[in-house]
């Protein structure tokens, strides 16, 4: 995604090694994705859902709201 957009910085964090970050972002399971250090979701999402989640987390208003699959693991929490 960072290759596709100059705005994106992608950071893969080793959760065990950086406990302060894991605690700060309440990481309980992996993969756990945090966007702009505020919104987050847990689990591996299909590409369209991942992109939609990143845009939503970054505060971009989509013309057609993307419907993410229901379930707690895909909920975006701010």
């Amino acid at each position, binding site marked *: *995604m960072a*290759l596709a957009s100059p*705005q994106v910085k992608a950071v893969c*964090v080793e959760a065990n090694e950086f406990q*302060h970050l894991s605690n700060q972002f309440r990481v309980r399971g992996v993969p756990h994705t945090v966007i702009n250090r505020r919104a987050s979701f847990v689990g591996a999402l299909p590409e369209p859902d991942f992109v939609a989640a990143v845009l939503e987390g970054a505060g971009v208003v989509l013309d057609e709201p993307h419907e993410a699959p229901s379930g707690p693991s895909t909920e975006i929490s701010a």
Partner: protein
Amino acid sequence: MALIPEPVRQQLKDRFDTVLSGPVHLTLYTRPGSSRLILPAGLGCPTCEDARQMAELLRDAAPEKVTLDVVDVSRDAARAQIDGVDDVPTIAIASNSETGRIRFQGLPTGTEFPALIDAVERVSRAEHGLSDESLAALAKLTEPAEVMVFATPT
């Protein structure tokens, strides 16, 4: 070199030989540390030496295409701040000498190691692998967005 066995090195060389196309610039942000001593946070860096070996492995697998720059954040805190690196070890990957926007924070072992190799190859080939729909959606990003993915080696 204890961390990476010779057969793996040769395998990576053979792979990079065929897969890499353009140049890749790696920056390793590190701090002197000891893998034997556990020091309070902010003092030592138990995994920095291993991370250095890993970054050198990538460079040595294709030295004509992969370059490596090592930044000691205890000596060059200003650089780390400018590049937005808060924790070490961090490996940043870029296609030129600019600051890499693809980063691995911590020692990328286990399932993170293939992801690191994949990132180097994708940067080299400028191959994002996303669909046209995703590209169109990402074009709507007008402000910087940081995507942190927490992972574990297993």
